[in-house]
């Protein structure tokens, strides 16, 4: 079987029932060659909406969420640092500070959003074997595949050809792409259709830049021709153009009706806020679109990133970002759709801890990510980075290590927001990822309907630290479908320990950790996760 076919089968829905599917063995887990259809509910019946804000160019995480009390930060960034007198805002209970421009934007900005429980901040988001090319790393983020995951792709040059959102729709809509709703599944504001919204079976969205122009176009754009029957390149290109022409005609009325019937309750600012205003109006007008992609460029600040007092380009971008999200959330609350919406930022990488000689920063690795929405569990996820080593000459051009695999958030959104099951996530992302608990309130045993606390923990690992031979014990309140798996500390699935129905009562399973290091052992009972750290000394 060729890779293309693998992707087709994992992306597109198939009629094969779950039990009958053939599985490849991958890291001890079955990966379905012919994936079962979406196990979770039908996405078309969901009223949930995902908004993705892409920050192109590589947003500087260290000057977005600032480790203000770390002297190393100030030493590494003598000219562009945020100083105490610039009034960054401390995130309660942490040593991390919002850049002042994130707060001084609209009605308290990110600080207020956070304090009101609508904003989560993730530090150290990234992936294994980071690539410092804008384009390659963007493709990795948008595709949801890390080609250097050694057990997925063996070749770092492998082409990334479709996106995680595109695959999600292709996987979850049985009739995709032939029989689709009258609204676009996804709308991208501006530019050419993103890799994120493409799938092997077809595009899962449209791009519009200027809604007025899109709506005012004349009808009858598509010719009367039918699609050509052949499968050679010529017919494929011909049919592609025909399909875009027909989509231009088809979606125009629906989008226009929603836009004209919708409203905003906020006077949106220029730039990104204006894009948010367009989205708010379409949601308000009842458009069924599930995913919106907004894009903001300019983050590649090799030069003159900021001036003293935090004026300059990067602060202005942060202010625009904060204003857009804050205004949108205020509007969403006013209009009553805030609990249907979850949004997140993505950026291809962060920047080098040490500034360069041009009052700027060169390409780096991990960055920060924001997740916003009414149902988000606000807070700071991840730690301030350890910057001490970058002061050493040997490490002056080194980059940050990541703390969390970027697909943890994708997986959590697919499962919690859109109701996908683990197997769906695996079909879409190629692997499973442990939730961070940003949407999902279940990484604790408090009020867990299935798992009891006993001996002080819901999941007891012993010995811990261990030499590798571990027993995991837990107590069920009632019979449940249980999965016990080991994940890397970054959140990527490593091995399944046990899976199956367990009776009520105390259980204990034994396993061998594959390598030394710190692991997350995750007990999942009927969709609720409990995670415990496991230290393996070898």
């Amino acid at each position: 079987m060729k890779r293309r076919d693998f992707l087709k089968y994992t992306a597109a829905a198939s009629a094969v029932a779950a039990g009958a599917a053939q599985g490849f063995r991958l890291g001890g887990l079955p990966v379905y060659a012919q994936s079962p259809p979406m196990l979770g509910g039908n996405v078309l019946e969901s009223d949930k909406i995902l908004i993705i804000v892409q920050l192109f160019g590589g947003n500087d995480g260290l000057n977005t969420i600032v480790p203000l009390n770390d002297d190393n930060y100030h030493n590494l960034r003598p000219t562009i640092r945020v100083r105490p007198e610039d009034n960054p805002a401390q995130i309660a209970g942490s040593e991390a500070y919002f850049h002042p421009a994130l707060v001084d934007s609209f009605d308290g900005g990110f600080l207020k959003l956070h304090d009101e429980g609508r904003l989560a901040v993730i530090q150290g988001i990234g992936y294994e074997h980071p690539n410092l090319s804008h384009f390659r790393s963007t493709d990795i983020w948008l595709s949801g595949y890390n080609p250097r995951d050694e057990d997925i792709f063996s070749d770092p040059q492998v082409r990334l050809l479709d996106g995680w959102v595109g695959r999600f729709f292709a996987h979850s809509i049985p009739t995709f792409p032939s029989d689709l709703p009258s609204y676009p599944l996804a709308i991208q504001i501006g530019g050419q259709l993103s890799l994120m919204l493409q799938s092997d079976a077809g595009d899962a969205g449209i791009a519009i830049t200027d809604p007025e122009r899109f709506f005012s176009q004349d009808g009858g754009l598509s010719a009367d021709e039918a699609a050509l029957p052949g499968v050679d390149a010529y017919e494929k290109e011909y049919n592609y153009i025909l399909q875009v022409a027909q989509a231009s005609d088809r979606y125009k009325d629906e989008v226009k009706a929603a836009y004209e019937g919708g409203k905003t309750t906020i006077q949106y600012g220029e730039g990104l806020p204006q894009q948010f205003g367009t989205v708010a109006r379409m949601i308000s007008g009842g458009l069924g679109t599930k995913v919106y992609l907004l894009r903001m460029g300019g983050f590649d600040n090799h030069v003159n990133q900021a001036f003293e007092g935090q004026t300059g380009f990067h602060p202005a971008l942060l202010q625009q970002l904060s204003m857009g999200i804050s205004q949108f959330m205020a509007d969403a609350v006013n209009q009553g759709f805030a609990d249907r919406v979850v949004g997140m930022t993505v950026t291809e990488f962060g920047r080098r801890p040490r500034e360069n000689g041009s009052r700027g920063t060169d390409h780096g690795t991990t960055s920060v990510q924001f997740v916003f929405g009414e149902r988000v569990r606000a807070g700071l996820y991840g730690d301030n980075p350890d910057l001490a080593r970058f002061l050493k000459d040997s490490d002056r051009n080194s980059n940050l290590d990541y703390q969390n695999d970027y697909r943890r958030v994708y997986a959590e959104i697919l499962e919690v927001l859109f109701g996908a099951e683990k197997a769906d996530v695996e079909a879409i992302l190629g692997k499973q990822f442990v939730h961070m608990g940003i949407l999902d309130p279940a990484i604790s045993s408090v009020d867990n309907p299935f798992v009891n606390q006993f001996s002080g923990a819901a999941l007891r690992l012993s010995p811990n630290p261990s030499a590798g031979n571990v027993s995991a014990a837990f107590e069920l309140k009632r019979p449940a479908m249980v999965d016990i798996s080991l994940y890397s500390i970054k959140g990527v699935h490593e091995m399944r320990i046990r899976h199956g129905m367990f009776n009520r009562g105390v259980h204990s399973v034994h396993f061998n950790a594959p390598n030394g290091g710190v692991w997350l052992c995750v007990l999942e009972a009927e969709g609720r996760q409990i995670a415990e750290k496991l230290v393996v000394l070898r």
Partner: protein
Amino acid sequence: MNRRDFLRMNTSGSSFRARSPQDWDDTLGVTAGLEERPGQLTRADALHLLRRFTLAPTHDLLAEIEGKTAQEAVELLLGPVYDPELNPEPLPEPPGPWVDSTEEDPLEADLITRNQIEKRWENQHDMLRQWWVERMHAETLPAREKLTLFWSGHFTTEFTFDDVYSVPQLLYRQNQMLRSYRQGDLKQFVEQVTLDGAMLAYLGGELNVAGNPNENYARELFELFTTGLGWYSEAEVQASARVLTGWKASKYNSAPAPRGMYKSYFIPEDHDIGAKELLGGIIAARDEDFNTEVLVRRDEIRGMIELIFALERNDGREHAVARFIGEKLYHYFIYSKPVAPPEDFMLQLQQRFIDNNYNMRAVLGAILRSAHFYEPAVRGVQIKTPAEFMVGFARQMGASPATVATAMAQVEQDLFDPRDVSGWDGYRAWISTKTYPLRAAFTRELIRAIPDAQLVDWARRFTGFDDAYLLTAAVEEFLLPRPVSTERHDAYVDALLTGETRDYEWPEIIGGTDPGSAALRLRSLLTAISRAPDFHLC
């Protein structure tokens, strides 16, 4: 076989980024290679060559090359051979005296002055892109301007980036430089680009100084300009940045201009004189006495370029630069789908690069004379770029290009200002629900605006113009890349004979003294043809 194995089978050494994935592993299925295409060009061959190598066929060029051999036709279209250093090609007249005007540094000026300067620059950018469109439109050998456009999208600079502008006077000089080197020695070309004033300003070169390297240009030099991903390490990017330290361009009247305004110059104390190890070679440390413009340029800049061009692997089966540039040329002239071209063809093409010591005219000529290029499967598979679609159509129709530069920017080919440093994505990215309606509107407006008499004269240049059936067939052949079905042909004849016109009345209409009546019907035909998907193909 496990998934890892079948993924490995389908990976390729090429690093071209794929953004439009549909049916991505299909190729054209052409087995003919780079061997010369024998015999004389038929009318269909000549039209194919003009579609791909120029912006669109015109009556004049078609008459010139039909019946010639591929060799003769390609040489004719490339024009005389020049040498940029010994016998330079005459360059077009500048767009106006403003190309020598100067400004102070707007970032040092007060806000009002800064706004005034930037307003003038915006204006100059408008004039510059319109000037280029007019060059493309008026050039008697438009293949040459299509090459300029190729290089402009390859060695990219942007007019607007971050919150600053490229100085239009530098962009103008860079554009002329592309003309001088577009058919020449690629190594010399890369050297020119590396020290080009607009480039030094755009990718941080002017801020790249000893002790504080800015690696922006060094990274893109590898990733986007010469080798593509996968041929160099992060350490080599950093070492290359050090090689490139010490160059600036004079661009403001408030700053030094030791070599004259808008010229690049070398500042010894900003150059890192230490040894640099990269790409399997060492650029030796230099004594202060030898830290001069001439020596650094010769030993370090040229030395590094030689190392880049020498990169090869698999016992010489893959040469980095020949592969990377060859693949780009293949996508530009043969099929833009972002997949690896046929391996046999690429091996032959790579050999041409090496045999001709990276002389671009020789390489280009080989592609356009090849049997591969003239295969039926190659015809019509290329999605027209905005330049081909808009400048090309205006040329074909003899229509004014007055609105073309603005229209091209709306459909995402803003000359001198691509979206980012990777240039234009191309292929299906050109056609979206955003751009398709705008392309259609442009065509409609252009057809409407051609004066009646001119339109009739245009039609009368086709053999058999006074026969409605022959004329329709000739216009189809002229404007569409492949023959159409009988049904479509009949529909186009009906479009020409609009308003109950009988076929026997056509000779009288086209031969009459009132052009209005014929023009009305010609517009009806052109409008019908322009709505077909294949009107966007070439």
